[in-house]
């Protein structure tokens, strides 16, 4: 207890000091101008604060670090990027693209800790294949080979493991990939939660395309391939803690075919991302930040199933932040929006695709949403973790 002291907690004092150092120059400007000018100056100051080098303030990992939002970004940039920095890692795309022996490859890895392991529409095995396949697909690659590593808890039912393995086999067959290497570890009871899986994937980039969210330019159109938030809401309800039932199943699916169809139809694809943790909102923010552009989307145009919307309304969460496991966001040249939409809709996984917004030159780094109500607001990166262990 620090009863009565003025600045309890060293971290607060630290934050204040850092802020004071960074913002010396314009403290003086904050004098007498009119109200809106002053608000504008504060906003500019915040923009500068947001561009600061990220620092992890916590001395322990919290659940927020795994949520895919701000804390995850900070952790990745401050710890991992700092330690491993190299040109292939630096874009922080879903997969790295490598030139190797005359061909271009995409490499990615992902770990799966979803709880519960089995849920309507799939299981951890489906996610472990589709999640990794999709990271390759949105890099413009044809997924080819996967590895699979299992961390199992002592006491885990073999029958469940067999079910998961069968799901992996079927999902791999559907996605056209082979699981060619693997690993198995067992930890004592209580040191893990049943079964965790890591998969890595390799794909071949056969097309002459370079994709990346940093390539987005003003005038580009932004599309989603279908209704958002199905997976996250399914998992939330499958946990049974909320006593809500709804007819909704996970959207887990391999996106390689859909991505290929889009790339074949439209030469002007700038970037694709699969909207997993942090949902579509996180991807839109990544576009705005990486490319230094503004993003404007229209709430009316974003497809959300009624059951998902209803559950999200009840729980006070925004479907824009809820994870999908079989949906992607695509950025295409504005003039090719219609062609892109047609190509997505022609594929079974993209029947409900929609153009949801566009890239602008205004307000770089900021995502704005035109609400269905007719107002405008910001869509920021998510802070905190509404839903741990979603995938």
């Amino acid at each position, binding site marked *: 207890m620090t009863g*009565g*002291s003025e600045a309890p*907690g060293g971290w607060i004092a630290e934050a204040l000091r*850092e802020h004071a150092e960074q913002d010396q120059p314009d403290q003086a400007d904050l004098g007498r101008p009119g109200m809106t000018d002053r608000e504008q100056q504060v906003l500019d100051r915040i923009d500068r604060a947001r561009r600061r080098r990220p620092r992890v*303030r916590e001395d322990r990992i919290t659940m927020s670090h795994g949520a895919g939002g701000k804390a995850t970004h900070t952790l990745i940039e401050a710890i991992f990027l700092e330690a491993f920095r190299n040109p292939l890692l630096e874009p922080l795309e879903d997969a790295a693209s490598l030139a190797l022996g005359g061909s271009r490859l995409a490499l990615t890895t992902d770990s799966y800790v979803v709880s519960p392991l089995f849920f309507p529409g799939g299981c951890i095995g489906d996610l472990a294949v589709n999640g990794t396949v999709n990271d390759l697909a949105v890099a413009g690659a044809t997924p080819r080979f996967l590895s699979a590593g299992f961390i199992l808890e002592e006491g885990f039912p073999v029958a469940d493991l067999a079910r998961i393995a069968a799901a992996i086999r079927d999902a791999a067959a559907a996605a056209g990939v082979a699981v060619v290497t693997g690993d198995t570890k067992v930890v004592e009871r209580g040191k893990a939660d049943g079964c965790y899986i890591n998969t890595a994937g390799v794909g071949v980039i056969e097309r002459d395309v370079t994709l990346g969210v940093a390539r987005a330019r003003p005038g580009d159109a932004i599309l989603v391939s279908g209704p958002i938030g199905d997976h996250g809401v399914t998992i939330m309800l499958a946990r049974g803690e909320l006593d809500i039932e709804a007819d909704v199943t996970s959207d887990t699916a391999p996106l390689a075919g859909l991505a290929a169809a889009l790339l074949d139809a439209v030469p002007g694809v700038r970037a694709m991302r699969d909207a997993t943790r942090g949902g579509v909102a996180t991807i839109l923010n990544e576009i705005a930040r990486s490319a230094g552009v503004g993003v404007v989307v*229209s709430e009316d145009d974003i497809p959300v199933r009624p059951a998902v919307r209803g559950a999200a309304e009840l729980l*006070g969460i925004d479907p824009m932040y809820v994870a999908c496991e079989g949906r992607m966001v695509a950025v295409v040249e504005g003039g090719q929006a219609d062609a892109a939409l047609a190509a997505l809709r022609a594929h079974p996984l993209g029947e409900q695709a929609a153009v949801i917004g566009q890239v602008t030159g205004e307000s770089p780094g900021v995502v704005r949403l035109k609400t269905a109500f007719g107002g405008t607001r910001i869509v920021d990166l998510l802070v905190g973790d509404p839903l741990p262990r979603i995938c």
Partner: protein
Amino acid sequence: MRFVDEFRDAEKAHALAAKIAALAEPGRRYKIMEVCGGHTHTIYKHGLEDYLPETITLVHGPGCPVCVIPMGRVDDAMHLAAQPDVIMTSFGDMMRVPGSNGSFFDAKARGTDIRMVYSPLDSLKIARANPDRRVVFMAIGFETTAPSTAMTLLRAAAEGLGNFSVFCNHVTIIPAIKAILDSPDLRLDGFIGPGHVSTVIGCRPYEFIARDYGKPVVVAGFEPLDILQSIYMLMLQLAEGRSEVENQYARVVPWHGNLVALRAIGQTMELRPYFEWRGLGFISHSALRIRDRYAAFDAERLFEVPGVRVADPKACQCGEVLKGVLKPWECKVFGTACTPETPIGTCMVSPEGACAAYYNYGRMHRQRVAEAAAAAAAPPAAGNGGLPS
């Protein structure tokens, strides 16, 4: 979606906006306080201010359960959570509120057993499943959440559950509104009354505001059209020189409140002589404690609670924001040292906090529409960056 989309209809909003603009006297400035943080959230989330003429300012009030918890109380809760065998349960909103030594989330990362629950009744489930542990529920909130805590206490007593207790931090809204009305630094024209609180207490407790202070009150629902309509009703009262309590949220709020809920609160809890509010200081008879009859479930009596008063960090101006004296962005540390990621003040933590709502939703280079009446013809944010049509 039924029961939602009707209350977010942009066409109706345009029509209401035009009527509001027509009621605004030229040259007069209006300050309307929305008491409840839920309203603040709706206002920013739907971009409702885009519909209002520049002369109407919405001032954010103290009705955010998490925001009004003083730092010392968070430290007390952490102290309880750290006692041997204790499992602390808490609503998710509370998890990121900073105490002197970090938040519940930080404590959880250090190994303290703190679990998020959606309902206080979930704490009973945890208590039943862990008979050798002591479960303490961190109860927060206004009259909205007090009944569910009361029902939980009644259930625990009926079951004779010996390992469950409540750390009671329930507060009541009326003394806070009175403190704001008596505060010299703010001139308000009217109040958007808290809808959820009113489902429990009804509309009558606000009558003193209209009668003694001459300010109109409209109890409002939480959809954007509810709020816009309530602003219209307030403007109409002001134009006609009336000050009355009106109920816009009649589909949910009964004039006399919910007697079953009130009875449950009365049975299990009583007013404290005084309680500290973040930023507002000590307000007498402004909070609830557990009655003697339920002492066996009162964490403040079962455990030693340090009860240390911790001053807010000097730079934090949550108090001024909670009273509506400062707009969130006028706080010295807003958005720079204090962000939703690293909150210094409580207003930046809860989704109902004015600072968090403004930072997450409203922080943009706003080009206000001068005449809301003109908005009826053109989309309100047309100047805000060529949206796809």
